[in-house]
């Protein structure tokens, strides 16, 4: 977590009184809680992912767009929000479906407040990690995007642990040229060694060294 950013929890439940009680509970933890009366309302609001992390608490049974449907649409749109489902009695099958689709957890109503808060906290934590991961990835990509095409080639080979001479031979260029490229790459990426360079490339693209 960076700075003092407060996590934001979104609650989507058509049952207003219960939704309000959850918001009240979440606010007790010092979090920001936002309620949505339906899936459509949430989609319409389209909240950006908060810097302090956050998660989505979804009622699995809702009129029109159900919780599962919302999960599917969010994932399709690459939403970073971890999802916790609230299910009623006898909705175990739906819950299993939701877990398979990538939900963090599901809570069967009625649930203990502590379990709910723990689950939310865990989801927030996961969201923060994910957020951090995403930040690093984007940062690495941005760094790498500053390199020219030839420099990116040189950097990938260097990251794989090849010496300057081997790179010159593979690329059929002179050793001196490779040396110049290497200096530019190190300067642009701010890395001091081949190992650091390798870490940067992997962060930008986990399959970048294959």
């Amino acid at each position, binding site marked *: 977590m960076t700075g003092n950013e407060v996590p934001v929890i979104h609650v989507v439940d*058509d*049952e207003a*009184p*219960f939704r*309000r*009680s*959850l918001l*009240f*509970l979440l*606010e*007790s*933890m*010092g979090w920001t809680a936002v309620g949505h009366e339906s899936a459509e309302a949430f989609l319409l609001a389209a909240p950006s992912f908060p810097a302090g992390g956050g998660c989505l608490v979804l009622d699995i*049974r*809702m*009129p*029109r767009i159900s919780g599962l449907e919302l999960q599917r649409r969010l994932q399709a749109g690459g939403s970073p929000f971890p999802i916790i489902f609230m299910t*009623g*009695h*006898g909705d175990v099958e739906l819950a299993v479906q939701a877990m398979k689709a990538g939900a963090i957890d599901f809570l069967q*109503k*009625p*649930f203990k*407040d502590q379990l709910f808060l723990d689950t939310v906290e865990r989801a927030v934590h996961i969201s923060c990690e994910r957020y951090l991961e995403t930040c690093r990835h984007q940062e690495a990509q941005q760094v790498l995007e500053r390199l020219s095409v030839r420099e990116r080639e040189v950097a990938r080979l260097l990251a794989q642990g090849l010496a300057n001479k081997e790179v010159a031979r593979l690329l059929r260029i002179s050793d001196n040229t490779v040396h110049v490229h290497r200096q530019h790459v190190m300067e642009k990426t701010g890395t001091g060694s081949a190992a650091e360079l390798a870490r940067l490339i992997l962060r930008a693209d986990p399959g970048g060294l294959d």
Partner: protein
Amino acid sequence: MSLVRLSGEFPDAALLESGPMNSPVARFFRRLLPLLLLFTAAVQAQESVRIGVLAWQGLEEAEVHWSSLAGQLEKRLPGKRVELIHTDLAGMAAALRARELDFVMTNPGHYVMLEAETGISRIATQVGSGFADPAHVVGSAVVVRRERSDIASLEDLRGKRLAAVSPDAFGGYQVIWAELRRAGLDPERGQVALQFTDFPMARVIDAVRKGEADAGVLRACLLEHLEREGVLPPGELQVVAVRSTSSPCRVSSPLYPGWAFAAAAGTPPALARDVLLALLSLAPDATGSSWSVPADYHAVYALFRELQIGPYAVLRETAWSSLARRYWPWLAGLLCLLLAGGAYTLHVEHLVQRRTRELSRALDERHRLEATLQAGQQQMEHLSRLSILGELAGTLAHELNQPLAAIGNYARSLLRRQQRDQLSASALQQAAEEIAGESERAAGILAGIRAFARKRARVREVCDMTELVREAAGLMRGMTAGGPKIELVDTLPEQQRHVCVDPLQIQQVLLNLFKNAWDAQQGVHVEAPIEVTLQVVDTTCRIAVRDHGVGLAPEVDAHLFEAFFTTKPEGLGLGLSICKTIVEAHAGEMGGQPAVPGPGTVFWFSLPLLATSGAVSGEEK
């Protein structure tokens, strides 16, 4: 007899006729023969006319008295031999019954008795000398010795001895008997001591003269006759209570018709006519008596009736035994009839009682059955409500959990904030309000369910139909989370939405229909709302619930309202049948048919509308 004799003559005649036929002598005889025969027959057939005569003064006296009459009659009846037969009272009746008499002569009393007994009919009435009217001839005189000045009237005879010839004597007793009764003295009750001397009547005079009796009853004119004859010194006996009558003699009684000359029932009318003509042509006899036209004997009948004797003797037979003896067949028959009638009445009564018992038993049985039926129906309605509850139980639990969970959340939130010293006044107020609201909501749901599930007696309340439907829809939404939208199309005017119903039962029907509609739509995942239409049809309010399910299979259609018919695996099949029962118990109708346009089904029911006070409904009363 005479016929045999006549036929006996014929062989002679035949012999004569079979002689030489052509001689003048023979022709003379042949002409003479019929005359000869007739003459012979007339001589041989000389009939006897038998006349019975009552010998009231004894046989000898009678023969002397009537012999001249016989001779005179015979003279006037050519070819007839008049035979007088003297009898007493009983003997004459017996002779008449034996058809031994052609005519009778007897006193008026006896005549009346014989007329009634044997059917004789009078042809003439005797009139004494000095009498003008045959209807007033016979009377009686009560005589006493001259020195008995203590007896001046009939009333004075009380306790005295009275001599008379015979209780059967008309002029000799019965006439005076009646007078005594009229004077308030009844010899039958011993108020006068009677002495019967028997015939002849002279014995009565003897008894009075000898002092054996204080008084005596004589036939009118006998006293005068005896005095004239010199048999009795004039004035020795005197008549008591002399009446002034048309009689030349002193009498103590009214006068009755004279002696009757009557023809027996079997006497040929021609003979009776001949005898009558002869009688009327007779000159008065030695005593001055003659025969006249038959008188009216009504007075005699009246006398007999008064004394209850003769033909009216039956009147005095008042004793039960005599009545029973006389009428026993009738009595027996009557008794049998009464018994039969009684038995029949008893039988009928018994039958009526039995039928009544049976009927009342049947009625009781019917009432019991009705009670059982009603109890059963209520039981079934109850069961149906429970089954609906059961079917809704899952969502219902969820529904109840919502407010409870919310309350829990608020409470714990408050605790957490308290622990973190972050409990603001506004937060506390918000939470408290929410908790109160949610607890009320939960209580409301529970109350609804309890009222719904409770067994209850029938009630009827005036309800607003629109309100009922709204409430039911609300209850449906409350029971089913994520349930369908219920769209209400209400076209009921303000004045025409009141019904007299059991609101809970009608809500049960509505809930059933909503639940069915929802179930139908669940199957096909249709999100269209359930459409509920309220409209006025004639004098009823029609509520239709339309779903957008797949509709009903035709084979299902026929069994829709049958009990225990269901298409749902967990259903009891009571819902619609109970609904129909409820609606019909409210004088309504219920039905279901495919929706147009399909797919889907419309279930509807109608209830009679109440004409409210504000309405100008013509149907009111």
